[in-house]
């Protein structure tokens, strides 16, 4: 009889620990350097950002952030001098470049669009995913395997392959450049991932919990709500992060289908470059702010994320 154990029975040797550690540290460095570079650039002045050789040590400035959130017009020094004292840090910074703030930029609305579309589609995908995963897990669904494969197969094709049909469909349906259209699209892409991930998690929850609740006087929906859902939170959280990361980072469809009111941050940020020279600090500032929500979300749910990644690899 062979014993199957999930964990390695032999403790890893010092050498293998060293090798593994080196690889992990090297990989972490390679991954983190671009992020650090962007973070540093966001605090540089435009001249510092294009200085050669690149400046590692520099005088930090909020100019990038000021430029990100505002639109500016160039004025003569006389006009600027004729104005009253600067009303804030940004005003002061901008005036040094012979410019005045004309108004807010589009970054905030685009960022809010990203939040609405990413969280909205994540909610829809996880909601639909949880219900259908529960159905597939607990009921005899006719052709369940084929249906599950069909759901999975929607994920096999690169979504951009259907960009043109979707573009045409959306134009006909009036969904182009609407938050609803983007939420529907990202939900459709994410729901397959959600169903498959959540089915795995729900399969792991013994049916006895719902059966006990149903015998004790609850309906199936109540039993699901009170016994299955609380135990599936780990899986739901992990699934939500994966869905959110996809929807948050998605660029191609956003660039294709949104241009104005519903434009998300990813297609917007590159457009900052064009406004008044190559404003790398503003682009870097936009990217840095763009990273914050996903960073916060991931740190808050890191345990569930780890569980989601290692799901199936470790037996309880």
């Amino acid at each position: 009889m062979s014993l199957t154990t999930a964990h390695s029975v032999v403790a890893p040797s010092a050498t293998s620990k060293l090798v593994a550690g080196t690889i992990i540290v090297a990989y972490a460095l390679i991954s983190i350097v671009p992020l650090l570079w962007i973070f540093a650039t966001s605090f540089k002045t435009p001249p510092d950002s294009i200085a050669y050789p690149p400046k590692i040590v520099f005088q930090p400035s909020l100019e990038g952030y000021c430029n990100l959130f505002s639109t500016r017009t160039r004025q003569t020094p006389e006009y600027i001098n004729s104005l009253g004292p600067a009303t804030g840090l940004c005003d002061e910074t901008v005036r040094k470049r012979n410019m005045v703030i004309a108004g807010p930029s589009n970054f905030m609305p685009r960022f809010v669009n990203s939040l609405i579309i990413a969280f909205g589609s994540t909610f829809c995908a996880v909601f639909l995913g949880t219900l259908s995963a529960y159905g597939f897990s607990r009921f005899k669904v006719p052709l369940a395997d084929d249906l599950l494969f069909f759901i999975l197969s929607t994920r096999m094709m690169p979504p951009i392959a259907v960009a043109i049909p979707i573009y045409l469909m959306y134009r006909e349906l009036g969904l182009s450049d609407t938050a609803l259209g983007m939420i529907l699209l990202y939900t459709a892409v994410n729901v397959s991932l959600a169903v498959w991930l959540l089915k795995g998690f729900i399969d792991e929850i013994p049916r006895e919990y719902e059966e006990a609740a149903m015998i004790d006087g609850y309906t199936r929906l109540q039993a699901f709500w009170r016994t299955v859902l609380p135990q599936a939170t780990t899986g739901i959280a992990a699934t939500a992060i994966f869905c959110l990361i996809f929807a948050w980072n998605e660029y191609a469809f956003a660039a294709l289908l949104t241009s104005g009111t519903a434009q998300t941050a990813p297609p917007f940020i590159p457009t900052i470059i064009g406004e008044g020279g190559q404003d790398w600090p503003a682009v870097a500032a936009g990217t840095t702010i763009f990273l914050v929500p996903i960073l916060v979300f991931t740190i808050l749910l890191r345990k569930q994320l780890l569980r989601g990644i290692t799901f199936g690899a470790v037996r309880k």
Partner: protein
Amino acid sequence: MAEIRVEHLRKAFGDFVAVQDSNFVVEDGEFFVMLGPSGCGKTTTLRMIAGLELPTGGKILLGGEDVTMRRARERDIAFVFQLFALYPHMNVRKNIGFPLLAQGMPGAEIRQRVEETAKLLRIDHLLNKSVSGLAGGDRQRVALGRAIVRRPKCFLMDEPLGTLDTEFRDLMVHELRELHNRIHATTVYVTHDQMEAMSMADKIAVMNHGVIEQFGSPREIYDRPATMFVADFIGSPPMNFLGFGGGLSKGAREIVVQGAKVAVPEVREDIAPADMALGIRPEHIRFDDASKLRGAVYGTEYLGTTQIVAVETADGIIKARVPAEIRLNAGDHVGLALSSARLSLFEKGSGRAVRTAIHDEASQARAQHG
């Protein structure tokens, strides 16, 4: 509390018949055990009584009401699962109170009922603990608490002691029976463990391949097995079988096994010539050099007060339970004397027991009790 009546119950999963034509009545307040090997249909029967599976055919009546097609929550029963199914996200108090919450009972009353129940099960000190930190026996008590708190019509238990350590299991067998004696709840208990069944049950149904092989008191099942399967399944070691040929006629009192004449309880029916088997429990065999039924000692198993001696006969190994003092060596030739009054006779083909005088005693005893 209520009586459970099962009529012609049948369940098929596709081509596989899990339960076929089950009929039994669990009387009000009775502790009924369904016993059988895994896959025999006992759990499926239990789940049909609970309403977790719908039968393919037949009827289930609870307290005279036909509940065959009712939902689980409309049946007013409680179920204790093998894995207890305690909700990990609730503490002990909330777990026990969960069924009452479904009825919309006011909080103060739930509190009182939960505390009464916890006291009954001696777990009142654990009420505010998380269920995940509990020991096996305490988890079992919480699961029982959740079942009895609602005072349902009957309790259904699916191998509730299956996952416990031996130590806890013996304790819980005792506690369960004691609890039953106090609250007299109609109970259906499923197990594959004959010791649990024998020590707790008022009535046992032995099941195999979806069929109830025998329904009766532990004593009836042990002393007068209705089929060779029951004889073989119950007892440790199980009943020995010695083959013999020829028919039997009404009134016969003797058969010939391996050339030796063996007295048997008076046969009450005529049996056409066929392959037959004589069944004898290990403890009903003595060593007697005068006996013509002979064999050689194959091995012994010392158990303290008794020993199990395996004897190789012309018809295979026979196990006898004899006092531990008897000294025997492998290869010793011994004669086997069988306690005639305790023999069973079976038709090998069908496995059915032949009616003999031991069955009249049973009906007499039943008549006296009735």
